């Protein structure tokens, strides 16, 4: 029997266990405002039913695992207020159902991937307080068939 929802917040915890990838029926992960540390486990990419990944306000570090872009049902991705770094993967543009992306207040560098501009359902995009460079135009330089990330 699998938990369909996973809502824990205001607790003090360690890393997100890699075995979370076995909970393949999960639709919602809400672990915001804890003291979770360590990386977002790549195994999270196995949660093909996941609609919401809400882990803002922790101490998560490392890069966004590219496996996250396999979560094609994902509507809400809130990873802000952590210690995440690296580039925002251009493959986030594969998340066709994404409605809300909140990645504020991390250490992301590089350009805003143009692929985000192809997400037709995206209503909210908050990438504030990172170290992003390049121009705003890139975000809207939409080319739906070809993603480039330089």
């Amino acid at each position, binding site marked *: 029997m699998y938990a369909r929802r996973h809502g824990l917040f205001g607790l003090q915890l360690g890393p997100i266990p890699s075995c979370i990838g076995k909970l393949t029926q999960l639709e919602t992960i809400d672990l915001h405002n804890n003291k979770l540390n360590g990386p977002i486990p790549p195994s999270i990419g196995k949660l093909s039913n996941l609609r919401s990944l809400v882990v803002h306000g922790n101490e998560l570090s490392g890069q966004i695992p590219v496996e996250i872009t396999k979560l094609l049902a994902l509507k809400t991705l809130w990873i802000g207020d952590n210690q995440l770094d690296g580039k925002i993967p251009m493959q986030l543009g594969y998340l066709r159902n994404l409605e809300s992306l909140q990645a504020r207040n991390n250490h992301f560098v590089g350009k805003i991937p143009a692929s985000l501009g192809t997400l037709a359902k995206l209503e909210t995009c908050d990438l*504030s307080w*990172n170290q*992003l460079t*390049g*121009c*705003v*135009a890139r975000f809207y330089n939409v080319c739906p068939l070809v993603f480039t990330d330089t």
Partner: protein
Amino acid sequence: MLANLTLDGNSLTGQIPSALSGLKELVSLHLYSNQLTGKIPAELRRLQQLSKLSLFKNPSLEVPDECPLNTEGQMCYKSRADVQAFLLCL
């Protein structure tokens, strides 16, 4: 379609793209505290739903003549009326 775009507090450069005016449902646009330059495109007037706009702390951004500022002297507007008044001066 995008309603809220929040990119403040980065190191974004270049001009504010006139293509933003294509985001007809944009309600809030926050670009303050970046390194944006040049003129603010007049095409942004097309954003009739825009109700929150902040562009301050972009030291090289050209502030239009007679542009209304908030009480702190900044390009920061928190009501649709204030935003629209600002856009009209572009």
